[in-house]
């Protein structure tokens, strides 16, 4: 037991160097494609700087664990903390803990519930969620109209219900439907959560397929779920040219699926850019410089026409 600890300690010693600024990072989870791109964006940014050390922790989707990690960072006397919240409604306690210790805190990617009451040395870096679902839905609409399907039936796959992005992107779909900008009439056959997960989306889609209801499009809150839906449809022998599938995130997996003709629309959220932006904000706050409390990294629509541009970006 002691040997293990010792060996592990040695490994970490060799990988750390003398540092000026230490930034503690608590990610909601490590085993998530998109968040991994974001995390690596942050790590890469830090590697390019000579005097910045990152300590990245995995909260394994556990709100309580995340709060403990923040308190551990405070105990270690880090210069700033970056949090990718497990749950956006549980951020008040985190803001309070960091504020009490007077350590700057930056939320990244997921909008905290207390975003409008953040203390001066706390900030939020993400993309404006309203854009993503709207861009995605409008593109699905455009494709449906182009195919002459003016009365379309769609399935909606939602992310984790406790998550603001899931709520917002789903609301965007309904807003586009209500706004009349769509051009086609969208009828939602069913709207269910697959918790951002490819595996759960695969099961959900298989369940939907087993009802034998004809449908024209699947709009998913993220790419992982869109890919899960695609895998389930392919397994059921459905020709992917006949179904329009939309996702959000433009992950590498999704772009490959788009090149293969399976995925029709996704929205590029600059994960690496968000990670780098969050680190920037954290470093500025640590030095006592002023930072905008809401930093928005723009969303871009990705279609088979421009997919090549994005392959190298995420």
């Amino acid at each position, binding site marked *: *037991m*002691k040997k*293990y*600890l*010792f060996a*592990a*300690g040695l*490994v*970490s*010693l060799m*990988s*750390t160097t003398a540092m000026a600024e*230490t930034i*503690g990072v608590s990610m909601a989870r*490590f085993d998530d494609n998109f968040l991994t791109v974001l995390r690596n964006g942050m790590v890469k940014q830090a590697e390019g700087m000579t005097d910045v*050390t990152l*300590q*990245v*922790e*995995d909260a*394994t*989707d*556990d*709100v*309580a*664990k995340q*709060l*403990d*990690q923040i*308190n*551990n*960072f*405070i*105990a*270690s*006397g880090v210069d700033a903390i970056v949090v990718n919240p497990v*749950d956006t*409604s*549980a951020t*008040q*306690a985190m803001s309070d803990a960091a504020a009490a*210790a007077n350590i700057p805190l930056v939320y990244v990617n997921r909008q905290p*519930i207390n975003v409008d009451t953040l203390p001066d040395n706390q900030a939020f870096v993400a993309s404006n969620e309203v854009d993503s679902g709207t861009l995605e839905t409008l593109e699905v609409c455009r494709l449906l109209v182009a195919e002459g399907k003016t009365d379309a039936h769609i399935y909606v796959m939602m992310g*984790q*219900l*406790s998550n603001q992005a899931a709520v917002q992107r789903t609301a965007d779909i309904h807003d586009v439907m209500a706004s009349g900008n769509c051009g086609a009439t969208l009828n939602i056959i069913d709207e269910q*959560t697959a918790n951002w997960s490819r595996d759960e989306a695969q099961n959900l889609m298989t369940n939907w397929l087993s009802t034998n209801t004809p449908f024209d499009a699947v709009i998913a809150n993220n790419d992982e779920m869109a890919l899960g839906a695609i895998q389930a449809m392919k397994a059921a022998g459905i020709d992917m040219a006949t179904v329009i599938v939309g996702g959000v995130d433009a992950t590498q997996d999704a772009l490959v699926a788009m090149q293969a003709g399976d995925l029709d629309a996704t929205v590029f959220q600059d994960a690496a850019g968000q990670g780098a932006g969050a680190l920037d904000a954290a470093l500025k706050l640590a030095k006592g410089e002023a930072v905008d409390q809401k930093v928005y990294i723009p969303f871009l629509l990705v279609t088979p026409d421009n997919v090549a541009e994005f392959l190298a970006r995420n």
Partner: protein
Amino acid sequence: MTAAMAPRAQSRARPPELNIFLALVLITLVFELLNRWQGGSFLFNTRDNVPGLFNQARLQIIILQVSITGIIAIGVTQVIIIGGIDLSSGSIVGATAMISMSFAQVALVNGNPNPKAIFGPELMDLPVIVPILVGLACGIFAGLINGLLIAYTKIPPFIATLGMMVSARGVAKWWSNGNPISFPTDSFGALSNGDFLGWITFGALPGQGLNPVLLFIALAALFQLALTYTLYGKRCYAIGSNEEAARISGINVARHKVLVYAIAGSLAAFAALVLCSKNLTAQSGMGVMYELDAIAMAVIGGVSLSGGRGSIIGTVIGALIFGVIISGFTSIRLDAYYQEMVKGAIIVGAVVLDQWRQRRRALEG
């Protein structure tokens, strides 16, 4: 009651708890040395702008971060001592958190209606005792079902509590259709975040946010005394050592098992109340894997999975080892990838040690 049924700790020259405590000291020392090597300190204060000899924030978080799982582990320890196992505690935490939190909500948030409201205004702004009683009732109910299934249908505890683990998680998700429940009353938030220590010592010892630790220590002390000095405790060890002998000697084994599982359920409910009060939110995913952490704490603390042996003190030290390891990893900036690998190795290592101890004892006769 024969000597074989009493806690063995008393008959040994060096109680097993001492070994575990030495392990705790050793691990702490290793982290202190590794920190010194990096130019810092694990337990001691190295900053000029903070007063004190010790790093106060570190000492607090080491124990605070294991208090909630620790409370669960107190119940799990008793279940394991009677030769059972409880896989349901994490899910009971989830279900209890959701249900009790819905009775702890405020009607108005910053002057607007509560956006996460579960019930109408007539069930909001209730006195804090209501969510506490509701929560404990949920935990005891779930524990009773576990106990009754195990005692009277004779199905293995692993299966009975596995069923409860799945069902209770289902309840947690169904209760609010997966939505988190937030914005509790101030008095509910104060359960964990308040300053009880400061209040009872008239401000001499400020303990803002340390209530989970106090509750953990109080419950641990209570059940350590119960296991050591009461008939309840003697029966637990008797059943765990040899169930048939316990039955023949006149112990109502079935009734006692139900009692122990109900206690474990109520402790899981305590943990849930502290957890959602501390985080000011309840979520259906709360408590996932807590049952395994609690079992691991007990096992590291010398509680034998074959029953009849172990103590709450051991489990508390096991919990502290967990706390030191989690904080230690962060303090030496060990990559998160290595953290889980090492944590797993420590759990397995502890069981290997336990087996080895048992074999040696068997050889010694």
